[in-house]
């Protein structure tokens, strides 16, 4: 079984983010870059699925796929240290400023070449937060999608993936034939900490680097030039100020309600 896990390097979600004034793209220079939180759950899900297979039946492989600048190899190394086997890294200067459509185009091409049984992703990246790439990827591949998976099981013999899709509307049990695109939510597992053995092994694992031309994609279709949306302008809002702060003297519940009443909120 071969699983491709899409991962993205993002600014640390605990840091304040800003846009660059020059080109309205995310300022990535002043924040720590980390692997997207939600992608760790996708890697963990892939590893658990492989570990549940009978060993020796056939070769199993977890391949990480990432599109991003040179430094995204840090995120790939993190995935390696969790236990992923190898990686594809799409690096090209023309990719800077790519929108979700371009990202899905590049990922779809790389996935087609890799021919996995299925693709795993987090539901969204914590920087762009559009939550559209898994669906776009499935559309481009012509594959079914099983998204927002809080539970997942793979029936390799029947070549079916089953999930529990968990959204505001409730829980839906779903299934689809392989190959398919699966996105996971945080509820699905608890990502492992890298073991010393895996951290050492990660250094020897191979990242295959590909450029756009090697994937057969025109640089006109990606990056800022190929984006189908454009930012007209943006403005940072003044930070929200603090208002009244009281220390409870036994009446603050009543004071709170008076505050709400004055604001006509009750």
């Amino acid at each position, binding site marked *: 079984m071969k699983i491709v896990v899409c991962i993205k390097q993002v600014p640390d979600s605990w840091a304040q983010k800003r*846009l660059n004034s020059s080109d309205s793209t995310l300022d990535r220079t002043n924040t720590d870059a980390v692997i997207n939180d939600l992608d760790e759950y996708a890697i963990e899900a892939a590893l658990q699925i492989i570990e549940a297979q009978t060993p020796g039946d056939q070769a199993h492989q977890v391949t990480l796929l990432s599109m991003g600048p040179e430094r995204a190899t840090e995120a790939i190394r993190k995935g390696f240290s969790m236990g992923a086997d190898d990686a594809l890294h799409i690096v090209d200067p023309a990719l800077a400023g790519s929108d979700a459509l371009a990202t899905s185009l590049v990922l779809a091409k790389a996935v087609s070449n890799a021919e996995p049984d299925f693709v795993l992703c987090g539901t969204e990246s914590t920087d762009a937060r559009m939550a559209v790439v898994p669906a776009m990827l499935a559309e481009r591949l012509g594959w079914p999608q099983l998204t927002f998976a809080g539970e997942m099981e793979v029936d390799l013999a029947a070549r079916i993936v089953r999930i529990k899709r968990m959204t505001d509307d409730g829980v839906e049990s779903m299934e689809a034939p392989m190959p398919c695109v699966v996105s996971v939510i945080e509820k699905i597992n608890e990502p492992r900490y890298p073991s010393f053995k895996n951290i050492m092994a990660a250094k020897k694992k191979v990242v295959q680097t590909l450029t756009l031309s090697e994937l057969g994609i025109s640089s006109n279709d990606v990056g800022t030039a190929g984006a189908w949306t454009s930012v007209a302008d943006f403005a940072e809002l003044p930070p929200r100020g603090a208002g009244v702060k009281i220390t409870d003297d036994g009446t603050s519940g009543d004071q709170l309600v008076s505050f709400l009443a004055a604001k006509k909120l009750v």
Partner: protein
Amino acid sequence: MTQILILVEQRDGRITRASTELITMAKRLGSPMAFIVGESVESQISQYGADKIFRGIAAEYQVHPVVPVVDALAALVAKVSPAAVLIASSATGKEIAGRLAVRIGSGVITDAVDISADLVATQSIFGGSTLVHSRVTHGVPIFTLAPNSIEPTSQQTEPVIEDLVLVFDQKSTAARVTSREPAKKGGRPELGEASIVVSGGRGTNGDFSPVEAFADSLGAAVGASRAAVDAGWYPHTLQVGQTGKTVSPQLYVACGISGAIQHRAGMQTSKTIVAINKDPEAPIFEIADFGVVGDLFAVLPQATAAINARKA
């Protein structure tokens, strides 16, 4: 007149609040053309001013989520050549928008909080710290509209109703739903749409009862911080923050939540913020309009009693 195609959704025989916002926004931009799966809610759609209703009546829509609706919207884009497509920013809505964008070769903007007459979208990003204006430069613009972006306005119309008949191919029906457990609502409003949200965090120590009682006295939705969800105290779908839901209610009450950026990114565009926390240094106080340094187990029951007394 400019036609705006919208995806209207119904739940338990009512069109969603998000759908009424879509129709109202579409009315401002042009002539709303609604697509709805199923029947019997046409009168609710016309109440908000749709000029045309296309009904999708086929079992496939129930059994195979997302892709059949994309098929329908793509067919309608070809049929009516709308100036834009508007969809609600729900989990499913954004997936439909994403697939539709690939399918019809259009740019897509998600989580718009406003759309101007010349189709420039406003987005509030990075937890409301930055406002961005952007436009779609290719194809028929697709927008998903964030909840609570516009006040729904009644405007009765007499729309033409037409059934959209489609034949779905195998690709559209490959993923299937085998069973459903609807969310237990417990009578509280939907978190993303509620005008008041009361959330609990680490400070509850797992006991959400005072948070829930206070929420119920206000008719509010209940949310939770990531710490509370990770501890298993509250359901994942009610998590507010960077990796959960973004809410923008009239009133947000943070109880026992420290207010790290992770959480603030999901709630700091709320109109009024109240915080209750034992730690006077908690960062949540930096953005609270009314902060109480105190024990939520003392403050909330007193406030709940005061609100219930006002109602009596």
